[in-house]
């Protein structure tokens, strides 16, 4: 199925795409068909900057289990950071 549903997250940071580093402006998160992963559906994340064109994009297609583990790891890393860094 095509889910059509997309979470949009405003972003501040940088990503390295096919043409090198670029400033990120947003992140799209969605569960839908992958372009490359061998699965019917994956949790896809596009780190993008539309102002710099469609190729300003860092893409990942993750299994649901990987995506959940990644989300927990991000929260854990942030939670364990020394005071004042976050």
């Amino acid at each position, binding site marked *: 199925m095509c*889910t059509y549903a997309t979470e949009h997250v405003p972003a501040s940071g940088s990503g390295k795409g096919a043409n090198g580093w670029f400033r990120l402006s947003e992140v799209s998160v969605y569960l839908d068909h992958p372009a490359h992963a061998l699965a019917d559906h994956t949790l896809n994340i596009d780190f993008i900057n539309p102002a710099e064109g469609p190729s300003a994009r860092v893409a990942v297609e993750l299994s649901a289990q990987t995506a959940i583990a990644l989300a927990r790891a991000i929260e854990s890393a942030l939670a364990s950071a020394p005071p004042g860094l976050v």
Partner: protein
Amino acid sequence: MNEALTAETVMMKGHNDDEVEAYLARPDGMEPFGGVVVIHHMPGYDSGSKEISRKFAAHGYAALMPNLYYRDSPGASPDDAAAAARAKGGIPDRQLVGDVAGAAAFLRGLAGSNGKIGVIGYCSGGRQSFLAACSLTLDAAVDCYGGAVVRVPAGAPASMKPLIGLSKQLSCPLLGLFGADDQFPTPAETAELSSALDEFGKAHEFHTFTGAGHAFFSVDRASYRVEAAVEGWQKVWAFFGKHLAGQG
């Protein structure tokens, strides 16, 4: 059938007379031929979709596939273009109809055309194929597992509306090819669409393949199901053979 064909990238007039890139595949030495507008799936104007276009040419039809994401992403790789379109909320229905109308006009204008035009779409393109057939005067339409026709999923862009209410406007016979394991559309939803079409006396034939889910035609994806795909293509050739082939 010698399956000789010519395939190339062309520019066509789409919605609002916009210049839109399109992939054209046409048969060599098999005139007159019918035309097929191919609507690519949500992952974009990719190699698999171009292969499908060439398959139509090998079977004696001129096929034209507009790059629905060209306006915002000229020259981009198909996956980047698809991601950009998604971030913007997808392709507006009105724009899609205009692009299919432009593609149909392009095909009718080809030397050797018999004037008959069909449309086929996959995945999101299945929904768009139904939309085009309810919005334009066409000769045949094929909906391959198009979701959001009967019901729009939670979280979809607010601009996306169900299309079942357009059933009365269907301009041509419709072939529907679906997977029994698909959740979007579910067999219950396609049955509901069939009932709506029956209500208005609209010619249609729906086939739901067991052991198949969504995107069973996609040969380069895990969803590919060879039995459903082979039988599905046979249904397509019989359907277009009846409605698009021969003299105009």
